[in-house]
């Protein structure tokens, strides 16, 4: 039994649905192959509405009533941080699928994360902008949440190494959809590139409005853009946007291909990064359970700490802190779809902090 | 034309008027008088359809209109110039008159505006002024004019002289007398008994919601007990 908390209603329901679908595809795949150690996996799902207030009792319930072997968070940072403490205190392993706040894994040695830290992504983006694309005058647009801030901080921490100079920074909130003033202002800044830290639903109007406003600079972004919805909304404006992400959509890997078609079949829309994260998190859990050979929670933790898994988001392993280590893909929008651009394998750059 | 048959009305559980019967024939004026809170306004508002009737009947042209909404009563020809004028203060004079004539056609409106202007020439230059910014006397003229826009056959008019200058009161009463002569029936509430007696054909005195005296205006003027009860000016 694996516990799973995720928003299914309220403002975050869209991501909740993606991550749950991804996770279920993984569960079905594992069970179709006979399960783990002869037992079928079962996902016990509760809706936390992305609120810490509800995440805590849910974690307690999963641990004490449902007696899950381990938990997965398919939710945002706030509820994940809140439940991480509960899992750590109960000494039950907990894997965060896509919540990015650095403090999550600092809750203790039972908490792991399969998603990449925002700061790591940010560093990779700096390398992409400064080295691969050779752009030096950059505007950063920061989405005001932990994710956006961590990305921007990561980017700025290494940008000097690549000769990047930040012309100006802008901030906007997750709820903003009208970027007229920011676009006007960016036009005046005349940058070579724009590094945006937003999610696709904010990003699509942002990029559209940038292009409509006549800004031609290349837009470099990250996982938050990764999904077909971005292109569907931004249409022509999406062309040429480049992102750093974990999923390679041109990958020949049959697991990836299968995931993509299965996801589309179940949801009616194309796979996104959140869905892939859910998939990867379950795959990691399954591998850990297998390696532990039992449902003993301490054994599972030890298995997680040393595991190496080939998931659809790359080859994953965890460091001392429980952060994931993997290489990154660069994808670009061409002809109305995400396509392979390049890869970032700089191991040193991609090393997550271990404390 | 108007008949009240043991009318009882009031607010919530409270009875403002108890078993009041009276009659206003065509082309006549009935004056309701009585102390504050005697139930005069309540009677008028009940006839207009704004106060809940708890018992008895309201008959207009022999039809029972007790249960009709206010909106249809105005179509039958009952118009109200209520206590405190209740103009629409944010609307102009013109617009107040338009509302007054809302139950009639747009063509009738133009004609009726002329009639009101002829009656109250003072309003003529002020059609664009906001009703709320007018003087008390002008407001009272407008309230009466607004009621006339509905081409009423029965005019309900409350506290005609309230807040009016004596000269304006004269104008108003002259106008009412002329309308009465043209066949309009009027149910009138008035604090100034002299004015009421001058114009009324019949008088009804209310006290605590009950009719305590009714008769012709002449009789009222000659009945000193009545004057004393109401005015307290025996000497």
């Amino acid at each position: 039994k694996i516990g799973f908390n995720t928003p299914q209603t309220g403002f975050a329901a869209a991501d909740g649905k993606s991550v749950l679908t991804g996770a279920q595809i993984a569960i079905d795949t594992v069970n179709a192959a006979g399960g783990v150690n002869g037992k079928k996996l079962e996902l016990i799902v509760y809706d936390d509405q992305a609120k810490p207030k509800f995440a805590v009792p849910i974690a307690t319930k999963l641990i004490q009533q449902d007696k899950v072997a381990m938990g997965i968070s398919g939710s945002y940072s706030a509820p994940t941080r809140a439940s991480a403490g509960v899992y750590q205190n109960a000494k039950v392993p907990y894997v965060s699928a896509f919540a990015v706040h650095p403090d999550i894994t600092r809750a203790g040695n039972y908490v792991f994360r399969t998603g990449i830290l925002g700061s790591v992504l940010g560093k990779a983006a700096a390398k992409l902008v400064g080295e691969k694309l050779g752009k030096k005058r950059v505007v950063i647009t920061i989405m005001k949440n932990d994710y956006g801030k961590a990305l921007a901080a990561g980017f700025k921490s290494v940008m000097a190494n690549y000769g990047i100079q930040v012309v100006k920074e802008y901030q906007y909130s997750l709820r903003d959809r009208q970027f007229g003033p920011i676009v006007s202002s960016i036009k005046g800044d005349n940058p070579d590139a724009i590094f945006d830290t937003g999610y696709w639903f904010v990003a699509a109007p942002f990029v559209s409005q940038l292009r409509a406003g006549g800004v031609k600079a290349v837009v470099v972004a990250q996982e938050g853009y990764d999904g077909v919805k971005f292109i569907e909304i931004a249409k022509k404006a999406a062309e040429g946007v480049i992102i750093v992400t974990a999923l390679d959509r041109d990958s020949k890997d049959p697991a990836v291909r299968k995931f993509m078609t299965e996801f589309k079949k179940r949801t009616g829309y194309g796979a996104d990064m959140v869905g892939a994260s859910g998939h990867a998190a379950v795959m990691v859990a399954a591998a850990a359970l297998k390696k532990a050979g039992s449902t003993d929670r301490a054994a599972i933790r030890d298995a997680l700490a040393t595991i190496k898994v080939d998931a659809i988001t790359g080859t994953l392993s965890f460091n001392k802190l429980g952060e994931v280590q993997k290489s990154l893909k660069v994808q670009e929008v061409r002809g109305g779809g995400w396509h392979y651009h390049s890869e970032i394998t700089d191991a040193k750059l991609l090393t997550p902090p271990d404390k | 034309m108007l008949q009240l048959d043991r009318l009882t009305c009031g607010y919530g559980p409270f009875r403002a008027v108890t078993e009041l019967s009276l009659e206003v024939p065509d082309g006549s004026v009935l004056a309701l008088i009585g102390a504050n809170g005697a139930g005069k306004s309540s009677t008028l508002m009940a006839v207009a359809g704004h106060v809940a009737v708890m018992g008895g009947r309201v008959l207009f042209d022999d039809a029972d209109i007790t249960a009709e909404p206010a909106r249809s009563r105005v179509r039958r020809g009952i118009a109200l110039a209520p206590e405190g004028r209740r103009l629409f203060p944010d609307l102009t004079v013109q617009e107040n008159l338009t509302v007054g004539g809302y139950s009639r056609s747009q063509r009738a409106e133009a004609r009726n505006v002329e009639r009101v202007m002829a009656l109250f020439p003072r309003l003529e230059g002020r059609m664009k002024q906001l009703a709320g910014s007018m003087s008390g006397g002008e407001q009272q003229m407008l309230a009466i004019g607004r009621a006339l826009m509905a081409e009423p056959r029965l005019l309900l008019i409350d506290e005609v002289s309230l807040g009016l200058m004596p000269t304006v009161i004269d104008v108003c009463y002259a106008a009412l007398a002329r309308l009465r002569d043209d066949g309009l029936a009027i149910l009138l509430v008035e604090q100034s008994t002299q004015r009421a007696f001058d114009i009324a054909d019949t008088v009804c005195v209310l006290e605590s919601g009950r009719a305590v005296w009714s008769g012709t205006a002449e009789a009222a003027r000659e009945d000193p007990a009545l004057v004393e009860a109401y005015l307290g000016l025996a000497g």
Partner: protein
Amino acid sequence: MDALLSITGVTVRFGGVDALTEVGFEVPEGALLGLIGPNGAGKTTMLRAVTGMVRPQAGSIVLDGAEISRLPTHRRVGLGLGLSQQIVRPFAGMTAVENVALAAGYAKTADPLRALAAASRQAERERALALLDLVGIADAAESLPAELPLGYLKRVEVARALALDPKVLLLDEPLAGLNTNEASRLADTVVDLNRQGTTVVLIEHNLSEVMRVCRHLVVLDNGRKIGDGDPAEVMADPAVRDAYLGAGSEGSGEARDAAA
């Protein structure tokens, strides 16, 4: 005689309406003063100015030697004013006795913290019952305002004002809505209270009662004072009579004859 309440040059304008123009008069200690005048003369406005519910543009109001025209209403009440309003405003959720008891607890409610410290209402309830009895409506003590006729509510209003133990009791048409018997009984109660030392200002349209109980009259018309003094003398003044008959100086001969 010292003036307990003295009003000088009070002027109130609402937008363009001159509700009061430089009105002044004195209320001696122990007086029972009648304030009369036609509708819209400014009587209510005068009481509202005295209690602070309306800010006069000019003028001074002195209560017991203290200038109060700048104080907020509750402070003036604390200094000894008690008001019964023309348009009754009982607290709809409270029974008659609770309404009065709330006023009787004025010493406790004057300060929030003191109010928090006290919970017992026994003494105030008893006093409230006594006052309701005094104004003749003890039978309505446990009724909610919505169930009471206006005549009763008027007296709840009066009892509430009395419960404040005011030095000056301001009554705005307390007799309206009462029948003749009730009116004269309540008027007698007011006279009794006055004999016991409460100074009273009474606004009233019921002139027979006014003439019966008041020992001093002030007459307002159109926001100006047109009479001040002994009731019989004041009422003999033609200007005052005209005001009451709804006719002004011109063209009023006919009306005056009719009234005589």
